[in-house]
């Protein structure tokens, strides 16, 4: 029977290991979950990792150097379906925000390059290869990962969620943080997280990415009315998903200094 199971691999490129941990931290399900599939590779917790054809490869992290790109291209070649796992893979997350900071902020942190470490513009998976599925969020919702795996094992098509965070937030009976003057990005951010940050009293920073039908202008105007200046609003919106909001440049109509060249495609 074993050869009928879906062959899966879990890999990390540059990142914080938090998304891979989110797989393992399904403490009640993990031991049974791995029985549902043919787990061929998971270098974070496995010594023996097959280098072969996968049905599904999950990738945590973003492309930050040449090594990442090589690994990613190889994984793409070796897999039928590639799943971007977590915010770094889906949007570039916080590390990609570097594209919107001044070069002088981190230039002094650069060190002498050797041939084995070569920085690339920090970019998500789909800036380089095709991503078949996205499991967004920083971190991704643990249960969403389990549901995804169960679905593909059963031959069901996983569906992305596009309702804004506000819908789940209202269901949970939270007080609206915008009403309290907090810069909450819930109205323009895709839900599926059960509004976990707002449940904990913290405003949404938009880590799951913008909804398809977001009203960006209205969101910006609300934040301006609450007294936030344009720099703050831009910084916030770009922290987790800046590369998925290229229109911000036009909206603010200001010259934001973006260093280096465009991400490759």
């Amino acid at each position, binding site marked *: 029977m074993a050869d009928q199971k879906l062959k899966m691999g879990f890999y990390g490129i*540059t990142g914080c290991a938090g998304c891979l941990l989110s797989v393992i931290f399904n403490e009640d399900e993990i031991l049974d979950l791995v029985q549902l599939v043919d787990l061929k590779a998971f270098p974070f917790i496995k010594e023996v990792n097959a280098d072969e054809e996968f049905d599904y490869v999950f990738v945590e992290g973003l492309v930050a150097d040449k090594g990442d790109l090589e690994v990613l291209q190889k994984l793409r070649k070796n897999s039928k379906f590639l799943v971007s796992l977590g915010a770094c893979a889906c949007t570039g997350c916080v590390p990609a925000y570097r594209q919107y900071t001044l070069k002088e902020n981190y230039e002094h942190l650069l060190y*002498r390059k050797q041939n084995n470490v070569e920085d690339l513009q920090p970019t998500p998976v789909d800036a380089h290869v095709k991503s078949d599925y996205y499991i967004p969020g920083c971190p991704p919702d643990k249960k969403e990962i389990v549901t995804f795996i169960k679905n593909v094992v059963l031959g069901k098509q996983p569906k992305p969620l596009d309702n804004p965070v506000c819908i789940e937030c209202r269901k949970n009976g939270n007080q609206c943080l915008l009403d309290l003057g907090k810069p909450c990005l819930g109205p323009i951010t895709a839900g599926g997280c059960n509004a976990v940050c707002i449940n904990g009293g913290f405003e949404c920073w938009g880590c799951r990415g913008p909804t398809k039908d977001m009203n960006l202008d209205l969101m910006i105007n609300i934040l301006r009315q609450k007294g936030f200046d344009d720099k703050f609003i831009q910084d916030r919106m770009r922290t987790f998903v800046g590369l998925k909001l290229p229109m911000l440049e036009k909206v603010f109509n200001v010259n934001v200094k973006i260093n280096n060249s465009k991400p490759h495609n």
Partner: protein
Amino acid sequence: MSKSITLNHITKIEGHASLKLGISRGKVNVCELSSVEGSRYFEGIVKGRKFFEAHEITSRICGICSCAHVIAAISAVEDAVGYVPTYQTIQLRKLLTLGERIRSHATHLYFLALPDYLGYESALAMAGKYRKQLQNALNLMKAGNGMLKVIGGRDLHPVSATVGGWLKHPKKEDLKKLELNLEAVKEDAIKTCNLFFSLSYPKFESDTECFSLVEEKEYAMLSGRFSSSKTSFEKHKYRDFVKEYHEPRSTANFVVKSDHRYMVGALSRMDNSSDKLSNGAKKMLKKSPMKLPSKNPYLNNVAQAIEIVHCIDESLRILEILNIQNEPVEKIKLKAGTGVGAIEVPRGTLWHEYTLDDKGTITNANIITPTAQNLLNIQEDIRMFVPSVIKQKKEKIVLGIEKLIRSYDPCFSCSAHFLEVNWK
């Protein structure tokens, strides 16, 4: 006879690292441990951001110790403006730190370290014969993660801690449940100790100095002087003692103190503060094969197991006296200045430093993680260790080295840190 060993992708660690080893005539002539993690430049990313944003951004340095980065960043910012948190806030931060240590140690011990000792390639492969032991691990991880969810709002990258207090306080009934959960996993912690006491560890003595924060009356977590058996200093003086330099091969920097390597982590904490462990943990320490002070890094696994017992006991102690009240977050009076946060986290002492201007904008940041401090020590330990096993088969040598590296529980995601090269 000469041989060379290259481990291009060391598995079962957080992040990515490689090792290059050259051996000739019984001597190690090349030993290079490198982080091959891409650079993320967190210290540059937070520049220009507001004082209340640092912890949310720097939390992303590391998944497994995200609570640590949150608390260290908040502590540093509060230190910069001269704000002193309330007693209740400090207790909540301690709980967040303790819960994280329980889940982190349990994950490391069972999923990353144990398979080496039992001869398996992974914890998952052990599930047939060692299901019960894995269940102990999962119970502890679940209790730790559950604790972080109750206290911090989420287990990875917690949300409720903030500069000046706590955004949403845990409910009394949830804290009650938490107490019951922790009581229930005491047994798992003791079994973990017994299991790790029963393993056989290589005899090895690192030529190192063991550093950790030390407090007079408690097993230090959020405060204390950075101390070894020989010396101690106050956190604001860290730049005088901790010198940083770059290894050109690696994206992680190595840190040395007075040109001498040092070690941080559970073993160092135990060396310096074992008299302040909980009674339950002291009892386990007595039963353990470890004789303190110890400089055998393999025994860091034993120290971590004992710390799980301590963390559960200490959490229960805090929960018993914590009478949670609704304290609104305090407004911070801004002023320009620099602040340092130094706290004990699963892998050792974590340093965050921020400079703020009078509007609360971050103008400078410096972050030194435990693994960045341990890197040189791990590398030099490998250099010292290899000659003692040099006659063995290559696979045996590699296993010995991998066990050694993993015993430090290194996190190469965390260690990517950069500072201006300062060749003094």
